[in-house]
């Protein structure tokens, strides 16, 4: 019933044309709308279309990462549709793809302010600190690229040394070679760094339980609103044992959350 409702109320889904263009058009209509209900509906339509685009891209090219801008568009549409959880999830995915994306950082910060004050949030300084850090801002595959460049430069310099016996070229080759080793070490560091899997609640008002059972008593005084972020400690069947950002541990149904993988 819910799926039918979605498809019947989302004309963009069955309309002809490029989904990206349809989503963009719906987004512009939402921005231009003066009536709140119209605006929220158009944002919701844009959100659905952006999500369909992402799903389609994943199915067509499973190995290719989604562009950060597409995630930001999805997040903005979700935020306009007042889906804070979906927005936070999209912004965080955008930041995984492009750790220093300015709008994703700004809007993620704003989306977190929309959550109730009691909801534990990641320490903004700690969360954002790495974005400004050059080393933290580069992804593992970027470090691989830097290592390849360093290797190429080092080898060219070494070849120049072999051809000309120039000691300067040899010293430079050694220095760049060290840079190559450092870049490789950074890829290893990022690969083996123990970082927890993080997740976001995407269903409104999820009751956090004291154990992995629907009949277990509630662990928190209030249900967790959509958009609450947490770290995954353990996965057990259809339940996740999570740690909130104030240190409290609780159980959440896996169907109510989405995880981002290692950050």
């Amino acid at each position: 019933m819910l799926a039918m409702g979605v498809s019947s109320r989302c004309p963009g889904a069955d309309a002809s044309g490029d989904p990206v263009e349809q989503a963009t058009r719906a987004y512009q209509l939402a921005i231009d709308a003066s009536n709140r209900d119209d605006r929220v509906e158009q944002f919701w339509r844009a959100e659905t279309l952006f999500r369909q685009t992402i799903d389609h891209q994943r199915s067509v090219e499973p190995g290719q990462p989604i562009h950060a801008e597409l995630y930001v568009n999805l997040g903005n549409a979700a935020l306009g549709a007042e889906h804070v959880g979906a927005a936070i999830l999209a912004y965080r995915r955008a930041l995984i793809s492009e750790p220093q994306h300015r709008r994703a950082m700004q809007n993620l910060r704003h989306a977190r302010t929309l959550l109730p004050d009691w909801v534990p949030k990641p320490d903004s300084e700690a969360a954002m600190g790495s974005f400004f850090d050059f080393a933290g801002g580069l992804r593992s595959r970027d470090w691989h690229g830097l290592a390849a460049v360093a290797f190429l430069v080092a080898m060219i310099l070494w070849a120049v040394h072999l051809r000309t016996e120039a000691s300067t070229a040899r010293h430079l080759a050694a220095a760049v070679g060290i840079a190559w080793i450092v870049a490789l070490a950074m890829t290893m560091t990022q690969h083996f760094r123990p970082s927890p899997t993080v997740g976001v609640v995407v269903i409104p008002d999820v009751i956090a339980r004291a154990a992995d059972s629907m009949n277990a008593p509630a662990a928190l005084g209030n249900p967790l609103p959509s958009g609450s972020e947490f770290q995954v400690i353990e996965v057990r069947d259809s339940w996740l044992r999570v740690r909130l950002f104030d240190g409290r541990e609780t159980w959440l149904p896996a169907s109510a959350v989405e995880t981002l993988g290692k950050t």
Partner: protein
Amino acid sequence: MRSQWISLLILVMLAWLSMDASSMGQTADDDVTVQVATEQSPYYVGVAVTIQLTVEGLQAEPEPTCVIESLPDPVRAQLVAISPRVVQQVYRSGNQFRRLEQVSHTIQFQVTASDPGDYDIGPFIISQAGVEKRVEPIRMTFDSVPTSDDMRIKLIMPTTAYPDQRVTVGIEWWFAGDTDDVSSLNIDATILDEFRFDPDATSRRGASRLPIRTSQGAIALAATVREEVDDGQRFTVVSAERTLVPSRPGTFEIEPISATIELVTQWQRRRSALDDFGFGGSLFGETFGSRRRAAQTSRFRAEGEPRTFTVKPFPAQGKPASFSGAVGQGFSLNVSADRTVVRVGDPIRLTVQLGGEGNIEGASLPSLSADGSLNADQFRLPDSEVAGVFDRDQGTKRFDVSVRVLDETIDELPAIAYSWFDADEESYHTVRSKPIALRVMPAQVVGSDAVVSAARLSDAAPSPDEATSTAKVASKLFTLSGADLAIETDPRVLLGASTTVLANRSFQVAGYALGSLFVLMAVIDRRRRQVDPSVRASVALMRDQRRRISSAADLPLKEAAKEIADALQIARSERPELKRAAIEQVMRDCESIAYQPSDAAEVRIEPDLVARALAAIDDSSLASESL
């Protein structure tokens, strides 16, 4: 009438009591004692002398003041410090403990005379909370100091400047002699105290320094030392710089800078107790200090030129409206907005980053509407001056300004102008930031349907999954203010790969492959170059002979035999180490074929002979070929 008299009497008594009360806790002038002390004479022109007044009998607070009522013209005096000293004693008197407090203040002046003579310094007037103590003048005799051609002092600075301009003032001390003989150097440049200076650069430990006496006391400026030859004399020149910041226009007469040195003209050898032992004295002397002591010293003085320094006002002609007092060069202005999609009335926070060479720290932001920047009809601009934050590390100043859009028709935040004055070119320059594209929507009108409870707000949303969120019930009002809702609309970007060139796997593989290829080629090239050219030529020659022998199979019989014999002959002469017997056997066979009478053109040489010929030169040349 009687009551009036009583009232008057009470009034007089109250007045007397209040006067008496106000005098309680204060000190009478007679209770204040002052001791005056000066440095031991003689005193010299250009050398500051400290006068210390020790005042007893005043209260600990407030801090007293001290002025010199009368001072002769050639004498300058500078109040250096007023420091209180409080001593408390507790003693027992009968069954009671009593506390005794003694307060004294130390007041220090530094006086400098520019001409020799006898001068009365004072009287000194010390005041504290209505108590005034007058100290009689003291007489001081300043002796002249002879000048010397071996020493010069120079003040190097421009004659004109503009307010807030960074003016480099150089001080150079020239000395034509052994600087080890200079036991003290006193540079008097207190006249520069009427200007403000940037903080002086700190000198490295062990680096040269030039001592300058200022109102803040003696400071040691980081200095450089060089050698100069002038009029046939070799001078050691110690130079230092300060950065002067004039604050107001005007013409200032700067008295000559002066330097006075105490020069050792005769040294005496300090006698060490260890000298008697005949050893060790030198070592200890070197370890614990110089073994030389001055036996006789002389003072010399040098004086610079008087100077006139003019601080000119900024020219009124051509002064841009966006000029707010910045002086320097190469100013830049970067403006960023926290969001670019707004409604009319929404605030936009602008971050204005100012950089450049000049008075960035004290720079202020001009009106944002100046020089065609933001239109005040389209933007609500801040009324008051915006305070900035100076980043000393980056040398930039950041201003955070909030503006509101008033006009729905505007589509960009116009460039903001900032003007500065280039003191070298004596002209104004204006830099503008880049305009920022804006999307402005009509103001959101809050109707009665929007003013509902949070529960209804949730219900009104068409979202199927978050419609009944109780979190919203407890949360604040949902707002998009603070988010940047601009999106990327280009499908090529959105659907393109999210990888940079660096992250591209093909790029990485190409990098490693190319690098390896370069080194491989270089190694091969190096090995080739390391081979003896004669060996290389020999290998090439042998290769040619083999080719001749192989191709001889296609020639007519006699011609082939001659070709093979000729090739073997060359190979044997090139490589004497080849198996001579085998080669000669093949050559004999070839010659017998070559000189046989029959001559059939279609007959070819036997492959076995070709193979034997090749084997004869292959056996021993194998190792050489690998080269």
